[in-house]
Structures are given as C-alpha cells and as structure tokens.
C-alpha cells in the first residue's frame, strides 16, 4: 500500500500540468505555423528583390539609352498630356520605341526589328514632352500588393540639328 500510492500518483496528470502541456502545444504549434508563414514571406521578399533588381536594370538601360539619344521623336508636342509610347533616335541614330506591350515593357528597335523585353510586370508606361528638349517618363509595376513606380526627366545629349 505504501508503494502503490506514489505509483498511482505518478500515473496521472494534474489539471495544472495538463493545462501547461496543452498551452505549450498550442504555443509551439503557433510558432511552427508562423515559421512556415515566414518562410513563405521570405520567398516572396526574395522574389520581390529579384523583381526590383530586374526593374533596376531596366530603368538603368532606359535611362542610359535616353541620355545618349540623338533626338526624342514622339511625343512631339509640349503638352500636359501623357502618351503610352516614347520614340527616340538612339546614340547610333536608330529609331527606337519604348512602350507597354501585352508581355510587359519593351524596347523595340525599328531598324534592326529587334524587341528587347525590359520589364514584364509593368502595369503602366507614360511619356510626355515637358519642354522643347526635355522628356519625362514614368514606369509603374505591381506584384501582389507591392506597387513601384519610377519617374525620370532627361534631355538628349547627342542631338543634331
């Protein structure tokens, strides 16, 4: 009897112990689920980072091409109105158009007939001539809830009469 009493006591849980164990289980499960969410979020951030990096490359390419342009051809009037396409002569005097195609933002070289994809997730592209030799363009893109836009103003450096 003396031995059976403690053995009987060890065989069960007190209410407090049960509550603690259940609490711990809930807590650990919550952390685990949160962890899974973080992994997913991390992947999404990584993807967003990749997109931003591509966006950066596209904007640099565009900025450099337009900086060294020989002329901005279209839009051809100084107005407040924006246009969905920008046509210019590049540093080699080739006619190049930048616009939002169904596949995303592209740069189309009319003389070589080569289409260069710039950024696939672009949602909008606008260009307008704000002074005689000053172009403004804006590129926007969206991924899930994240929205980015980039606006730039440039004069052509290699203009000819």
């Amino acid at each position, binding site marked *: 009897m003396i031995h059976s009493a*403690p053995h009987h*006591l060890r065989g069960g849980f007190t209410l*407090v*112990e049960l509550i*603690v164990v259940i609490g*711990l289980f809930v*807590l*650990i499960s919550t*952390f685990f689920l*949160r962890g899974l969410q*973080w992994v997913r*979020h991390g992947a999404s*951030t990584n993807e967003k*980072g990749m997109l*931003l*990096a591509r*966006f*950066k490359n596209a*904007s*640099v390419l565009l*900025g*450099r091409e337009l*900086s*060294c342009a*020989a*002329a901005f*051809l*279209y839009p*051809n009037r*100084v107005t407040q109105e924006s246009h*969905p*396409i920008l*046509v210019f*002569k590049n*540093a*080699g*005097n*080739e*006619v190049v*158009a930048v*616009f*939002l*195609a*169904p596949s995303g933002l592209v740069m*189309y070289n*009319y*003389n070589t*007939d080569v*289409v260069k994809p710039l950024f696939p997730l672009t949602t909008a*592209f606008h260009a307008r001539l704000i002074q*005689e*030799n000053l172009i403004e363009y804006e590129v926007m893109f969206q991924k899930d809830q994240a929205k980015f836009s*980039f606006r*730039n103003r440039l*004069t*052509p*450096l*290699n203009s*000819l*009469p």
Partner: protein
Amino acid sequence: MASPSPSVRSAPRRTVGMALPIILVALLIVGLIMFAFTRSSQSELNLLDKLISAQKLIYLVRTGMGIAEAKLAKERWYGDTKPRDVIVPTLDDRDASLKIYVDDYVQVVARRYEKVYRMLDHVKVFVEARYRGNVMYGFGKFILSPEPVFDGKSTIGVTGARKTIKVAGEDKGVVAAEEAPTLRRIVGMKFLHEDEIYAAVPTFAGMDDVDSRRALGRFWAGDQIPYARMYGRNLTLSEKLWASSVEFPSSASGTIDVESCRATLQRLDVPPNALANLENVQSENVLKNTFVGETLKRFFLSTAWDVTRGRRDDELKKVEIYIPYPPIKCTNADVIAAIGKAFGAPHPIPVREGIDYISTFTYDLATRRGAAEQFLIQRGFGNSYPDVGPADFSDTLAQVKTANAYKFKWIATLVRTGEDPGTSIEKGDTLTAGRCMFLYNNIGNAIESNAAFTISVENVDIIPVSGPTPYYSDYYIREPGTPKNYPLFTVLNFFLKYLDDALVELPPNKSPGYTEPGDGYGNIVDPFVEGGDTYVVLF
C-alpha cells in the same frame, strides 16, 4: 517533525521549470520575428537604394560631360604645358566621385600662316563616375571649327587673314592667323558599365592609362559609318514623326502591339529617292557626304539646336548663304580686246552671276525651302551626294567659280625712220592693255612723228600666258542683322568632325617651353591660295 512528502516538495520546482523554457522560447521567437522583419525591410530598402544609385551614376557621367564642355568652351587650361589633363571636381555627396580626362588630338598636317602652326583637331573627353562602389564610364568628343592653334590655351579657332607686318623695316603683306567665330560642342557621347568597357577594349587598364583611352577612342570611332548611315536612313521618318499628328493604336489597358508599332512607323517611313537606298550604300564617302549635306540643311547658326521642329523651321527662315567678297571684274574694253586676240574667240568667257552661279540664297516662301536646301539643289546635290572624299566635297561646296582669270603679255616692234633710224621693242602685261591695243590698232601706222623722224608700229604679238583659270569665291552662312556669320567651310568642317578622325594624332607630352615645329615638320599646307595676282584679269 515528519519530513515533507515528495509531492509537496516537487510541485513548486516543476512550476518554475516549465515557465522558464516557455519564456525563453517566446523571447527567441519574438527576436526572430523582429530580426526577419528588419532584414526584410532593409533588403527592400537596399534594392531601392541600388535603383537610385544606378540612376545617380548616369547623372554623374552627364555632369562630368557638362563640366568638361563648360571648361573647354572657356579655354584649355592645361594647354601651355601639356596636351592632356585630369579634373577631379569636388562633389557634395561623399559617396560620389568623378574624374574627367581630356586628351588633345592634333592634326598631322601643320598649317602655315605668318609662321607654321600645329592645329588642334578635337579634344577627347572621358569620364569615370563612381557611386557607392559602382562605376560607369562616359566618352565624348569636343569638336571645334575652325581649328585653334595647338600651342596655347585658346579654344577659339583661327583662320588666315591678310595683314601687313614689318619685315626688316619694310611693310610686307602676309596671311596671318586670326581668331574667328568658332563652333564648339561635345558630340558622340556614350556611357558604358565596367563589364562593357572590358568587352569593348580587352586591354583596358583603367582611365589613368593614356593607351587605354586611346584604344577606347578608336573603339568608339568604329561606330561612325553606321552612325552616318542611320542618320540619313532615318531622316524622313524622324521628320514625319515630328511633324505629323500620328497616333500609335493602343488597347483599353494602354498596351501597344509590336506589330502595330512597326506598321505605324512603316507608314511614315517613305524616304525620298535621295535617301531611300542609304541602307544599302557601300561607299563611306556617300554616307559621310550625305550626313554633312543634310545636317547643313537643318543648321540655323547655333549649336544650341535642341529645339522643337516648329522653332527650328522658324530659325531656318532667317538663314542666308551668300558671297561676301565677290570678285571685281574687268570691264576695260582694251583688256577684253587684248585677251580676245591672245586666246581667240570666244575668250574672255564671262562667268555670270545669276546664270553660272548664284551669289545669295535665302528662304523661299513658295517652295518652303531653306537657304541651304536651295543651295544644295543649285549646286547639283539635291537628289544624291557624290562618291568623293568628304573633305573635297566640303571644299567644292564651300566655294563657287565666280570668274575666269586670264593673263597675257605683249610685245611690239617699233621702227624709227629718219634721224637715228633703228628698231626698238616695247612690251608689257595686262595692265598696259591700253597701250597694247593702241599699238595693235596702229600696226603699219606712224604713232609719233615730227620733221626729223617717224616712229611706226611694225608688229604686235599678244601672247597668252595663262587662262582661262577658274577663280573661286567663298560662300558664307549668316543670319542677317546678327553677328552670326561663318564661312560655309567652317560649318561643313564642323559636321565632318562628327565622323572623321583621319589625319589626327595624340601628341607627345609637352614640356614647359614647348615650341611649335619649324618649317621642316611633316606636311605643311598653305591654307590661303592667292585668288589672283594683280596682273590677272577676271571676267
């Protein structure tokens, strides 16, 4: 005194033991959440920062080019002692740095004015921009026309001007170098990333290395022919895009198909016969001459030509091409008669203003053609450009034959009869044509006599020396009522420099006290061929 039961002792220990791990685990997880959040925010900020940095690099290179152009327009600050220099401007942003390299290129052929000069052809400009560990390079070519003298700081060009100077106490007429209105601008700007520059010039050893910069200059010069080809090829399309109210069809969502963009451009791309086949033209001369001729058509006497087409067209209406110094033609009947005798009919052949050449071109309201466009048509280059060297083409365009020059001499035999009989000879050149014709018209007659003797003309020979020799006058381009007035050759030479690096070299280092080469240096050209000596008669 009974000892406490084990259950009574262990209960408090178990409570403490469970709470601690919970708190530790909870703290760890909260920490992880905070770390992940911070990291994710920083990563996105870093990417945005990189985006901005990349744009800043482009602006830095542009700034470098602007600084170089502004400084060079003022002077070549290093020109007294060396043919190249580096500028490191101070920037407000400590993350940014700029290095601007300028290299003089001189013409291989020296030029003789009152002494022999080497001429500065152009200055190559290189920019190295760094921003937060990233680097971008820029290249440009500062061109000048007419060329300045290489020795010294000036970037004002010189041309030959007739002057009288004292030589050994005596006045002597010379053609001396004199500063002239100069066209200047950085052209052919290109930007490259670090990886691209190594792809372009595998031996690139950094901008500090002169040979690397020379190699880069050669690499970029290789684009000049495709550049000229595309300029002519796309002229009509560019003009129509500027002029028309074209619309590119877009969908409701604002997208444009590549096919519809191509079709829209193709509809506008119908070049006139002169420019239609430039894509297939193999002759570099034709491509270069087309570039020079077509830029001339659109030039309105300013290098600040970044204006809309409408304003450019208004400016072009003011341009005039003219001959400021027409030849003074001979109307002396005796001279005309003498040349007729010397050279035979139909000499002297006149070159008539308005028929054989036109002295002034202005904007034509009826055809809406600018002065230069009419000028080119009248000179025979309205439809195509010739396959001759562009320098020769520019020479041909810049001058026009305005007269024929003749030179003759005569000799007359006079016979004296009566007192002290004998034969004497009179002779002369063009300027004494009056005497010549007087004698010629009196062959066999006495021209002087008195009681003691008679002098009669036995024979007169009028001998052709040279002629008809074409005499050329220079065309100028100007905006009347303004100081804008340039020799046409200056303008053509300026546009040719977009394309031509021929016959230039990177000079060796100058040392203090550097002197120009003497007469023995290389080839020397005399830029001023005399139009006609005083004895030449123009018709």
